[in-house]
Protein backbone atom coordinates (compact mmCIF):
# COMPACT_ATOMS: atom_id res chain seq x y z
CA UNK A 1 0.00 0.00 0.00
CA UNK A 2 1.45 3.32 -1.06
CA UNK A 3 1.11 6.87 0.07
CA UNK A 4 0.63 9.73 -2.35
CA UNK A 5 3.61 12.00 -2.93
CA UNK A 6 3.88 14.93 -0.54
CA UNK A 7 6.36 17.37 0.87
CA UNK A 8 7.33 16.80 4.51
CA UNK A 9 7.96 19.41 7.18
CA UNK A 10 9.03 18.74 10.77
CA UNK A 11 9.05 22.09 12.57
CA UNK A 12 10.65 22.32 16.04
CA UNK A 13 8.86 25.45 17.27
CA UNK A 14 5.14 26.12 17.65
CA UNK A 15 5.52 29.37 15.72
CA UNK A 16 7.01 27.53 12.73
CA UNK A 17 4.25 24.91 12.78
CA UNK A 18 1.57 27.63 12.82
CA UNK A 19 3.41 29.51 10.10
CA UNK A 20 3.45 26.45 7.83
CA UNK A 21 -0.18 25.69 8.62
CA UNK A 22 -1.15 29.26 7.73
CA UNK A 23 0.88 29.28 4.51
CA UNK A 24 -0.10 25.84 3.20
CA UNK A 25 -3.77 25.90 4.24
CA UNK A 26 -6.04 23.13 3.05
CA UNK A 27 -3.28 21.47 1.00
CA UNK A 28 -1.54 20.45 4.23
CA UNK A 29 -2.42 17.92 6.91
CA UNK A 30 -1.05 17.79 10.43
CA UNK A 31 0.82 14.55 11.15
CA UNK A 32 0.67 13.56 14.81
CA UNK A 33 0.57 9.81 15.56
CA UNK A 34 -0.25 8.88 11.98
CA UNK A 35 -2.35 5.88 12.98
CA UNK A 36 -5.48 7.39 11.45
CA UNK A 37 -3.99 9.83 8.92
CA UNK A 38 -1.64 7.40 7.15
CA UNK A 39 -4.43 4.82 6.89
CA UNK A 40 -6.71 7.41 5.29
CA UNK A 41 -3.89 8.24 2.87
CA UNK A 42 -3.26 4.56 2.10
CA UNK A 43 -6.96 4.21 1.31
CA UNK A 44 -6.66 7.29 -0.96
CA UNK A 45 -9.35 9.07 1.04
CA UNK A 46 -6.89 11.90 1.64
CA UNK A 47 -4.13 13.12 -0.65
CA UNK A 48 -2.41 16.02 1.13
CA UNK A 49 0.31 17.84 -0.79
CA UNK A 50 2.14 18.65 2.44
CA UNK A 51 2.48 16.96 5.82
CA UNK A 52 3.37 19.03 8.86
CA UNK A 53 4.79 16.66 11.48
CA UNK A 54 4.22 18.22 14.91
CA UNK A 55 5.93 15.50 16.94
CA UNK A 56 9.07 17.58 17.46
CA UNK A 57 7.23 20.61 18.84
CA UNK A 58 7.75 20.42 22.62
CA UNK A 59 5.15 23.14 23.29
CA UNK A 60 2.45 20.81 21.95
CA UNK A 61 3.38 17.94 24.30
CA UNK A 62 3.15 16.96 27.94
CA UNK A 63 0.80 16.80 30.92
CA UNK A 64 0.89 19.65 33.42
CA UNK A 65 -1.20 19.81 36.57
CA UNK A 66 -1.66 22.67 38.98
CA UNK A 67 -3.66 22.04 42.18
CA UNK A 68 -6.88 24.03 42.19
CA UNK A 69 -6.58 24.89 38.51
CA UNK A 70 -6.60 21.55 36.76
CA UNK A 71 -4.60 19.91 34.01
CA UNK A 72 -3.27 21.03 30.65
CA UNK A 73 -2.56 18.26 28.15
CA UNK A 74 -0.64 19.03 24.97
CA UNK A 75 -2.47 17.84 21.85
CA UNK A 76 0.57 15.88 20.61
CA UNK A 77 0.83 13.92 23.88
CA UNK A 78 0.87 10.18 23.25
CA UNK A 79 -2.08 8.12 24.48
CA UNK A 80 0.37 5.81 26.30
CA UNK A 81 1.73 8.77 28.27
CA UNK A 82 -1.82 9.66 29.36
CA UNK A 83 -2.49 6.02 30.24
CA UNK A 84 0.62 5.93 32.47
CA UNK A 85 0.22 9.39 34.03
CA UNK A 86 -0.27 9.21 37.80
CA UNK A 87 -2.04 12.56 37.95
CA UNK A 88 -4.52 11.63 35.20
CA UNK A 89 -5.22 8.36 37.03
CA UNK A 90 -5.77 10.18 40.31
CA UNK A 91 -7.82 13.16 39.10
CA UNK A 92 -9.37 12.15 35.77
CA UNK A 93 -9.90 8.41 36.12
CA UNK A 94 -12.33 8.03 33.20
CA UNK A 95 -9.70 9.44 30.82
CA UNK A 96 -7.09 7.08 32.26
CA UNK A 97 -9.45 4.16 31.61
CA UNK A 98 -10.29 5.24 28.06
CA UNK A 99 -6.61 5.83 27.16
CA UNK A 100 -5.84 2.27 28.25
CA UNK A 101 -8.52 0.85 25.96
CA UNK A 102 -7.56 2.70 22.78
CA UNK A 103 -6.11 0.39 20.10
CA UNK A 104 -3.11 -1.76 21.04
CA UNK A 105 0.13 -1.03 22.90
CA UNK A 106 1.73 -0.05 19.58
CA UNK A 107 -1.15 2.23 18.62
CA UNK A 108 -1.13 3.90 22.06
CA UNK A 109 2.63 4.51 21.75
CA UNK A 110 2.02 6.33 18.46
CA UNK A 111 -1.43 7.92 18.62
CA UNK A 112 -1.99 11.29 20.26
CA UNK A 113 -4.94 12.69 22.17
CA UNK A 114 -5.25 15.59 19.71
CA UNK A 115 -5.29 13.16 16.81
CA UNK A 116 -7.99 11.04 18.41
CA UNK A 117 -10.13 14.16 18.78
CA UNK A 118 -9.42 15.72 15.35
CA UNK A 119 -10.12 12.40 13.61
CA UNK A 120 -13.56 12.81 15.22
CA UNK A 121 -14.71 9.22 14.88
CA UNK A 122 -18.06 8.78 16.65
CA UNK A 123 -16.66 5.52 18.10
CA UNK A 124 -13.44 7.07 19.44
CA UNK A 125 -12.44 6.37 23.05
CA UNK A 126 -11.22 9.73 24.38
CA UNK A 127 -13.96 12.24 23.40
CA UNK A 128 -16.54 10.65 25.72
CA UNK A 129 -14.56 10.95 28.99
CA UNK A 130 -13.07 14.32 27.99
CA UNK A 131 -16.54 15.80 27.49
CA UNK A 132 -17.72 14.24 30.78
CA UNK A 133 -14.74 15.83 32.53
CA UNK A 134 -15.61 19.26 31.10
CA UNK A 135 -12.55 19.55 28.85
CA UNK A 136 -11.95 22.62 26.74
CA UNK A 137 -9.73 22.74 23.67
CA UNK A 138 -7.22 25.42 22.74
CA UNK A 139 -7.05 26.14 19.01
CA UNK A 140 -4.00 28.06 17.86
CA UNK A 141 -3.20 30.02 14.74
CA UNK A 142 -0.89 32.88 13.77
CA UNK A 143 -3.55 35.33 14.97
CA UNK A 144 -3.62 33.80 18.47
CA UNK A 145 -5.46 31.22 20.54
CA UNK A 146 -9.15 30.55 20.97
CA UNK A 147 -10.83 28.21 23.45
CA UNK A 148 -14.06 26.28 23.30
CA UNK A 149 -15.71 23.37 25.12
CA UNK A 150 -14.80 20.07 23.48
CA UNK A 151 -18.48 19.28 22.92
CA UNK A 152 -18.68 22.29 20.60
CA UNK A 153 -15.43 21.40 18.82
CA UNK A 154 -16.56 18.00 17.52
CA UNK A 155 -19.31 18.69 14.99
CA UNK A 156 -19.94 15.26 13.53
CA UNK A 157 -18.34 12.19 11.99
CA UNK A 158 -14.87 13.40 10.98
CA UNK A 159 -15.90 17.04 11.34
CA UNK A 160 -14.48 19.59 13.76
CA UNK A 161 -14.59 23.34 14.27
CA UNK A 162 -10.95 23.59 13.14
CA UNK A 163 -10.57 26.23 10.43
CA UNK A 164 -7.84 26.50 7.80
CA UNK A 165 -4.55 27.61 9.32
CA UNK A 166 -5.47 26.36 12.79
CA UNK A 167 -3.95 23.61 14.95
CA UNK A 168 -5.54 22.01 18.00
CA UNK A 169 -2.77 22.50 20.56
CA UNK A 170 -4.04 21.88 24.10
CA UNK A 171 -6.73 20.39 26.27
CA UNK A 172 -7.75 22.16 29.47
CA UNK A 173 -9.25 19.95 32.16
CA UNK A 174 -10.81 21.78 35.10
CA UNK A 175 -9.91 20.73 38.65
CA UNK A 176 -12.48 18.08 39.64
CA UNK A 177 -14.91 19.39 42.26
CA UNK A 178 -14.64 17.82 45.70
CA UNK A 179 -16.43 14.50 46.12
CA UNK A 180 -16.42 13.79 42.39
CA UNK A 181 -15.52 10.58 40.62
CA UNK A 182 -15.42 9.69 36.91
CA UNK A 183 -15.78 6.32 35.24
CA UNK A 184 -15.55 5.03 31.66
CA UNK A 185 -16.95 1.85 30.16
CA UNK A 186 -17.43 0.26 26.74
CA UNK A 187 -18.88 -2.74 24.99
CA UNK A 188 -17.48 -4.14 21.75
CA UNK A 189 -17.30 -7.41 19.88
CA UNK A 190 -14.29 -8.54 21.92
CA UNK A 191 -11.98 -7.12 24.51
CA UNK A 192 -8.90 -6.27 22.47
CA UNK A 193 -8.26 -4.38 19.24
CA UNK A 194 -11.94 -3.67 18.63
CA UNK A 195 -13.89 -0.54 17.87
CA UNK A 196 -16.49 0.19 20.51
CA UNK A 197 -20.13 -0.53 19.75
CA UNK A 198 -20.96 1.88 22.58
CA UNK A 199 -18.82 3.71 25.10
CA UNK A 200 -19.91 5.85 27.99
CA UNK A 201 -18.50 8.08 30.69
CA UNK A 202 -19.99 9.49 33.88
CA UNK A 203 -18.67 12.23 36.11
CA UNK A 204 -20.54 12.25 39.40
CA UNK A 205 -20.15 14.33 42.56
CA UNK A 206 -21.75 13.68 45.92
CA UNK A 207 -22.60 16.25 48.57
CA UNK A 208 -20.90 16.22 51.94
CA UNK A 209 -23.45 13.80 53.39
CA UNK A 210 -22.20 11.18 50.95
CA UNK A 211 -25.67 10.36 49.59
CA UNK A 212 -27.12 13.31 47.69
CA UNK A 213 -25.94 13.77 44.11
CA UNK A 214 -24.54 17.25 43.68
CA UNK A 215 -23.41 17.09 40.08
CA UNK A 216 -23.63 14.65 37.20
CA UNK A 217 -22.53 14.50 33.58
CA UNK A 218 -23.29 11.38 31.57
CA UNK A 219 -21.84 11.22 28.05
CA UNK A 220 -22.54 8.57 25.42
CA UNK A 221 -20.18 7.62 22.57
CA UNK A 222 -20.83 5.79 19.31
CA UNK A 223 -24.60 6.39 19.47
CA UNK A 224 -24.66 9.77 17.69
CA UNK A 225 -22.36 11.55 15.17
CA UNK A 226 -20.62 13.26 18.12
CA UNK A 227 -20.40 12.72 21.90
CA UNK A 228 -23.95 12.92 23.24
CA UNK A 229 -24.49 14.56 26.63
CA UNK A 230 -27.53 13.25 28.47
CA UNK A 231 -29.90 16.00 29.54
CA UNK A 232 -32.37 13.79 31.36
CA UNK A 233 -30.05 11.72 33.57
CA UNK A 234 -28.86 14.78 35.57
CA UNK A 235 -32.46 16.00 35.90
CA UNK A 236 -33.46 12.68 37.39
CA UNK A 237 -30.50 12.34 39.78
CA UNK A 238 -29.22 15.76 40.85
CA UNK A 239 -30.43 16.80 44.31
CA UNK A 240 -31.66 13.28 45.04
CA UNK A 241 -30.34 10.54 47.25
CA UNK A 242 -28.72 7.84 45.10
CA UNK A 243 -30.66 4.59 44.76
CA UNK A 244 -30.58 1.64 42.37
CA UNK A 245 -34.12 2.54 41.22
CA UNK A 246 -33.19 6.13 40.34
CA UNK A 247 -30.03 4.93 38.56
CA UNK A 248 -32.19 2.55 36.54
CA UNK A 249 -34.57 5.40 35.66
CA UNK A 250 -31.65 7.61 34.58
CA UNK A 251 -30.16 4.75 32.56
CA UNK A 252 -33.45 4.22 30.73
CA UNK A 253 -33.72 7.95 30.07
CA UNK A 254 -30.19 8.07 28.61
CA UNK A 255 -31.02 5.07 26.46
CA UNK A 256 -34.08 6.81 25.02
CA UNK A 257 -32.02 9.94 24.31
CA UNK A 258 -29.42 7.98 22.30
CA UNK A 259 -29.77 7.93 18.54
CA UNK A 260 -27.64 5.02 17.35
CA UNK A 261 -27.46 3.52 13.88
CA UNK A 262 -27.17 -0.12 12.88
CA UNK A 263 -23.85 -1.00 11.31
CA UNK A 264 -21.27 -3.78 11.07
CA UNK A 265 -20.51 -3.56 14.80
CA UNK A 266 -23.99 -3.60 16.34
CA UNK A 267 -27.66 -2.96 15.68
CA UNK A 268 -29.30 0.25 16.84
CA UNK A 269 -31.57 -1.75 19.15
CA UNK A 270 -28.60 -3.47 20.81
CA UNK A 271 -26.77 -0.17 21.20
CA UNK A 272 -29.76 1.44 22.93
CA UNK A 273 -29.89 -1.49 25.35
CA UNK A 274 -26.16 -1.24 26.01
CA UNK A 275 -26.47 2.48 26.78
CA UNK A 276 -28.85 1.52 29.59
CA UNK A 277 -26.58 -1.30 30.81
CA UNK A 278 -23.43 0.84 30.83
CA UNK A 279 -25.24 3.82 32.39
CA UNK A 280 -26.59 1.74 35.24
CA UNK A 281 -23.24 0.05 35.80
CA UNK A 282 -21.13 3.22 35.70
CA UNK A 283 -23.54 5.26 37.84
CA UNK A 284 -23.40 2.57 40.50
CA UNK A 285 -19.61 2.27 40.27
CA UNK A 286 -19.11 6.02 40.39
CA UNK A 287 -21.50 6.36 43.33
CA UNK A 288 -19.74 3.66 45.35
CA UNK A 289 -16.34 5.16 44.59
CA UNK A 290 -17.56 8.69 45.41
CA UNK A 291 -18.81 7.47 48.80
CA UNK A 292 -15.25 6.41 49.51
CA UNK A 293 -14.07 9.92 48.61
CA UNK A 294 -16.27 11.92 51.01
Amino acid at each position, binding site marked *: *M*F*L*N*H*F*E*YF*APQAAKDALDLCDRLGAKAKI*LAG*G*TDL*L*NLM*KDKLLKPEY*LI*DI*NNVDEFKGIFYEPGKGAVIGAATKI*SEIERSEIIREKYFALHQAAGEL*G*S*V*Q*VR*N*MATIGGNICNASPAAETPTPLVALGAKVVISSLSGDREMPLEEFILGNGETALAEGEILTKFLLPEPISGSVSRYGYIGLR*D*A*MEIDAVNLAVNLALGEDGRIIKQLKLVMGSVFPRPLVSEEAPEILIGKEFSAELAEEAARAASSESKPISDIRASAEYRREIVAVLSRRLLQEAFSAAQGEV
Partner: protein
Amino acid sequence: MKQLIALDINDQIYEVPVDPWDLLSDVIRKKVRLTGTKKGCEQGDCGACTVLINGQAVLSCLTLAIACQGKKITTIEGLAEQDGRLHPIQQSFVDYGAVQCGFCTSGMILSSKALLDSNPKPGREEIKRALSGNLCRCTGYKKIIEAVEVASETMSKEGVK
Protein backbone atom coordinates in the same frame (compact mmCIF):
# COMPACT_ATOMS: atom_id res chain seq x y z
CA MET B 1 12.78 14.29 -4.06
CA LYS B 2 15.02 11.75 -2.40
CA GLN B 3 16.91 12.75 0.67
CA LEU B 4 19.80 10.95 2.34
CA ILE B 5 18.94 10.13 5.94
CA ALA B 6 20.80 8.26 8.67
CA LEU B 7 18.87 5.54 10.50
CA ASP B 8 20.19 3.94 13.69
CA ILE B 9 19.01 0.35 13.42
CA ASN B 10 20.28 -2.21 15.95
CA ASP B 11 23.13 0.16 16.94
CA GLN B 12 24.37 0.42 13.38
CA ILE B 13 24.04 3.56 11.27
CA TYR B 14 22.56 3.08 7.80
CA GLU B 15 22.58 5.94 5.32
CA VAL B 16 19.64 5.53 2.99
CA PRO B 17 18.05 7.70 0.32
CA VAL B 18 14.35 8.05 1.04
CA ASP B 19 11.32 9.90 -0.24
CA PRO B 20 9.11 11.56 2.40
CA TRP B 21 6.34 9.05 1.70
CA ASP B 22 8.53 5.97 2.26
CA LEU B 23 7.27 3.88 5.17
CA LEU B 24 9.72 2.62 7.75
CA SER B 25 8.64 -0.99 7.13
CA ASP B 26 9.55 -0.70 3.43
CA VAL B 27 12.85 1.06 4.09
CA ILE B 28 13.90 -1.57 6.67
CA ARG B 29 13.01 -4.43 4.34
CA LYS B 30 13.94 -3.12 0.90
CA LYS B 31 16.72 -0.60 1.46
CA VAL B 32 18.40 -1.82 4.64
CA ARG B 33 17.61 -5.40 3.62
CA LEU B 34 16.61 -6.56 7.08
CA THR B 35 13.68 -8.77 6.16
CA GLY B 36 12.86 -10.07 9.65
CA THR B 37 10.32 -7.26 9.97
CA LYS B 38 7.13 -8.44 8.27
CA LYS B 39 4.33 -6.65 6.50
CA GLY B 40 0.89 -8.13 7.17
CA CYS B 41 -2.21 -5.98 7.09
CA GLU B 42 -0.32 -2.71 6.45
CA GLN B 43 -2.97 -0.80 8.36
CA GLY B 44 -1.82 -1.14 11.95
CA ASP B 45 -4.02 -4.02 13.03
CA CYS B 46 -1.84 -7.14 12.88
CA GLY B 47 1.41 -6.09 14.56
CA ALA B 48 3.66 -8.11 12.21
CA CYS B 49 5.64 -4.95 11.39
CA THR B 50 6.30 -4.09 15.06
CA VAL B 51 9.74 -2.60 15.77
CA LEU B 52 11.04 -0.78 18.83
CA ILE B 53 11.70 2.94 18.57
CA ASN B 54 13.56 4.25 21.60
CA GLY B 55 12.51 1.04 23.35
CA GLN B 56 8.79 1.39 22.64
CA ALA B 57 6.80 -0.98 20.42
CA VAL B 58 5.46 0.84 17.36
CA LEU B 59 4.07 -0.08 13.95
CA SER B 60 6.62 0.46 11.17
CA CYS B 61 3.89 0.27 8.51
CA LEU B 62 2.35 3.50 9.87
CA THR B 63 5.64 5.32 10.46
CA LEU B 64 7.40 7.55 7.96
CA ALA B 65 11.09 6.61 7.67
CA ILE B 66 12.03 10.27 7.33
CA ALA B 67 10.61 10.92 10.82
CA CYS B 68 12.95 8.36 12.41
CA GLN B 69 16.24 10.22 12.13
CA GLY B 70 18.02 10.44 15.48
CA LYS B 71 15.96 7.64 17.01
CA LYS B 72 17.10 4.19 18.08
CA ILE B 73 15.35 1.51 16.07
CA THR B 74 15.46 -2.14 17.12
CA THR B 75 14.34 -4.91 14.78
CA ILE B 76 14.28 -8.66 15.39
CA GLU B 77 17.79 -8.89 13.90
CA GLY B 78 19.07 -6.80 16.79
CA LEU B 79 18.14 -9.23 19.56
CA ALA B 80 20.51 -12.18 19.20
CA GLU B 81 24.15 -11.99 20.29
CA GLN B 82 26.88 -11.37 17.71
CA ASP B 83 27.91 -15.06 17.96
CA GLY B 84 24.39 -16.13 17.03
CA ARG B 85 23.21 -17.04 20.54
CA LEU B 86 19.52 -16.28 20.73
CA HIS B 87 17.99 -13.78 23.11
CA PRO B 88 16.13 -15.58 25.94
CA ILE B 89 12.77 -14.53 24.47
CA GLN B 90 13.72 -16.00 21.10
CA GLN B 91 15.03 -19.18 22.76
CA SER B 92 11.86 -19.70 24.79
CA PHE B 93 9.69 -19.12 21.69
CA VAL B 94 11.66 -21.95 20.03
CA ASP B 95 11.64 -24.21 23.09
CA TYR B 96 7.95 -23.82 23.90
CA GLY B 97 6.52 -24.18 20.40
CA ALA B 98 5.49 -20.53 20.13
CA VAL B 99 6.70 -20.39 16.51
CA GLN B 100 4.66 -22.15 13.86
CA CYS B 101 4.55 -20.41 10.50
CA GLY B 102 6.72 -17.66 11.98
CA PHE B 103 5.11 -14.68 10.29
CA CYS B 104 3.95 -13.00 13.53
CA THR B 105 7.02 -14.05 15.51
CA SER B 106 9.23 -10.97 14.97
CA GLY B 107 6.46 -8.67 16.11
CA MET B 108 5.44 -10.93 18.99
CA ILE B 109 9.02 -11.10 20.29
CA LEU B 110 9.57 -7.34 20.02
CA SER B 111 6.28 -6.62 21.82
CA SER B 112 7.36 -9.12 24.48
CA LYS B 113 10.75 -7.42 24.75
CA ALA B 114 9.12 -4.01 25.28
CA LEU B 115 6.85 -5.54 27.93
CA LEU B 116 9.63 -7.33 29.83
CA ASP B 117 11.89 -4.25 29.72
CA SER B 118 9.26 -2.19 31.52
CA ASN B 119 7.66 -4.98 33.56
CA PRO B 120 10.11 -7.87 34.16
CA LYS B 121 7.57 -10.06 36.00
CA PRO B 122 4.25 -9.63 34.19
CA GLY B 123 1.18 -11.66 35.11
CA ARG B 124 -0.69 -13.68 32.48
CA GLU B 125 -3.28 -10.92 31.96
CA GLU B 126 -0.54 -8.33 31.53
CA ILE B 127 1.13 -10.49 28.90
CA LYS B 128 -2.15 -10.93 27.03
CA ARG B 129 -2.77 -7.19 27.16
CA ALA B 130 0.73 -6.37 25.96
CA LEU B 131 0.43 -8.78 23.01
CA SER B 132 -3.13 -7.88 22.03
CA GLY B 133 -1.82 -5.83 19.10
CA ASN B 134 -0.04 -8.86 17.61
CA LEU B 135 -2.18 -11.34 15.75
CA CYS B 136 -1.21 -15.01 15.38
CA ARG B 137 -3.33 -17.29 13.23
CA CYS B 138 -1.48 -20.54 14.07
CA THR B 139 -0.80 -21.07 17.73
CA GLY B 140 -3.93 -19.96 19.52
CA TYR B 141 -1.61 -17.81 21.68
CA LYS B 142 -1.30 -20.32 24.53
CA LYS B 143 2.27 -21.31 23.74
CA ILE B 144 3.26 -17.72 23.03
CA ILE B 145 2.07 -16.63 26.46
CA GLU B 146 3.88 -19.57 28.09
CA ALA B 147 7.05 -18.68 26.21
CA VAL B 148 6.92 -15.10 27.50
CA GLU B 149 6.40 -16.37 31.05
CA VAL B 150 9.45 -18.62 30.75
CA ALA B 151 11.51 -15.85 29.15
CA SER B 152 10.58 -13.57 32.02
CA GLU B 153 11.97 -16.11 34.51
CA THR B 154 15.12 -16.78 32.49
CA MET B 155 15.84 -13.11 32.02
CA SER B 156 15.48 -12.24 35.68
CA LYS B 157 17.54 -15.27 36.71
CA GLU B 158 20.33 -14.46 34.26
CA GLY B 159 20.00 -10.70 34.57
CA VAL B 160 19.62 -10.36 30.78
CA LYS B 161 18.10 -7.25 29.21
